[in-house]
């Protein structure tokens, strides 16, 4: 029993700061990159008025800390992981495997009454199943305040299907750290209790959008701005 007591007390004496990627044995080295799109958003984040922010990438302690330190509320929801729920798999009229978009939207992006000033999509659209991309963007449009902004990253033509999927951490005014999402060896039960077997593999690039595709995807938004970067990633900033 004394060993249990000791272990219990150790939990509360643990590090008070979030374990960074460098300290975690599971994480690979983080790559740093400048982000023009983020730089544009930071001006909005400097607002004294508390903002409502939605991050639909992989859970990032850095992003949560960045937003909350500035007095903003942040909603975090890993849509890519949520899309791997086996319960979503169904078939269309032609018998092709698709994901049930209605079920997906019934279980995700459900924030009653919340209207977001900023939405961070990161590279979600490139890796999300085809059947979910447009429905998700449509839902995000309804959840974004007029004048609110959405930041998304898209690979360019040079990217192959094995382009690593990254999670993004905001570490500075226009600086991101990219952390490759690693393959997991063990099966893990998701929040719904389903076993996510696809978590054994890294996510594969589903498609490469061209500019016209991206404009079409965000056609309901009022404006769109492209930033082309040296690492062959297009950053897209759209305004509701």
């Amino acid at each position, binding site marked *: 029993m004394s060993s*249990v007591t000791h272990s*219990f007390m150790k939990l509360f004496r643990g590090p008070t700061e979030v374990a960074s990627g460098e300290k*975690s044995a599971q*994480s690979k080295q983080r790559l740093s990159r400048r982000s023009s799109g983020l730089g544009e958003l930071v001006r909005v984040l400097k607002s004294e008025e508390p903002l409502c922010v939605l991050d639909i990438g992989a859970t990032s302690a850095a992003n949560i800390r960045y937003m909350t330190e500035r007095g903003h*509320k942040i*909603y975090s929801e890993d849509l890519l992981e949520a899309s791997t729920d086996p319960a979503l798999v169904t078939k269309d009229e032609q018998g092709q495997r698709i994901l049930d978009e209605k079920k997906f939207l019934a279980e995700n992006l459900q924030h009653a009454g919340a209207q977001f000033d900023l939405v961070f999509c990161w590279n979600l659209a490139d890796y999300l199943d085809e059947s979910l991309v447009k429905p998700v963007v449509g839902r995000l449009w309804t959840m974004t305040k007029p004048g609110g902004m959405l930041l998304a990253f898209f690979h360019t033509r040079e990217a192959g299907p094995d382009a690593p999927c990254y999670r993004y951490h905001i570490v500075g005014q226009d600086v991101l750290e990219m952390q490759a999402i690693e393959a997991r060896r063990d099966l893990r039960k998701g*929040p719904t209790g389903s076993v996510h077997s696809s978590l054994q593999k890294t996510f594969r690039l589903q498609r490469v959008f061209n500019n016209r595709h991206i404009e079409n995807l965000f056609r309901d938004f009022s404006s769109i701005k492209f930033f082309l970067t040296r690492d062959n990633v297009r950053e897209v900033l759209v305004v509701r």
Partner: protein
Amino acid sequence: MEPGTAEFAHIGKSVIIKGELSGSEDLFVDGVVDGKVELEGNNLVIGPNGRVHANVNAKGVVVQGKLEGNIHATERAQLRSSAVVQGDIFTQHIAIEDGAYFKGKVDIQKETRSAAASPAKPEVKSASAAASSATPAKTLAGGTAATPTSTTVTKP
């Protein structure tokens, strides 16, 4: 974050509790709790085998297992790398380790509201089971708990 006292209660991984769980000491939950957890002024740890479907209200909350419900931690909330948390977090300080899964809102509040001020997320099922410790630092083990309407862990 130090426990209020050296005494604590331990809910083992085979224990299932349905109903309201409240107490005036620190609590380690490694079993199943379905209902509500009220430990105002004390600390809660959800162990790696813990599965909690409840709103929790405590001074400090550490999650290593599963939690579906809101967290009201007057001091600090910590999500360890094995945590799977679905719910909103209201606290003064938050720490989330790499690998933790979190779905919900984070609201940093200097003066934390009590759990009663915000709508309960999971439904409180009919209080049909409870397991209580007669003395502190007693491990609760065994099968499904019995029938009292609430569970209170108190110091003698």
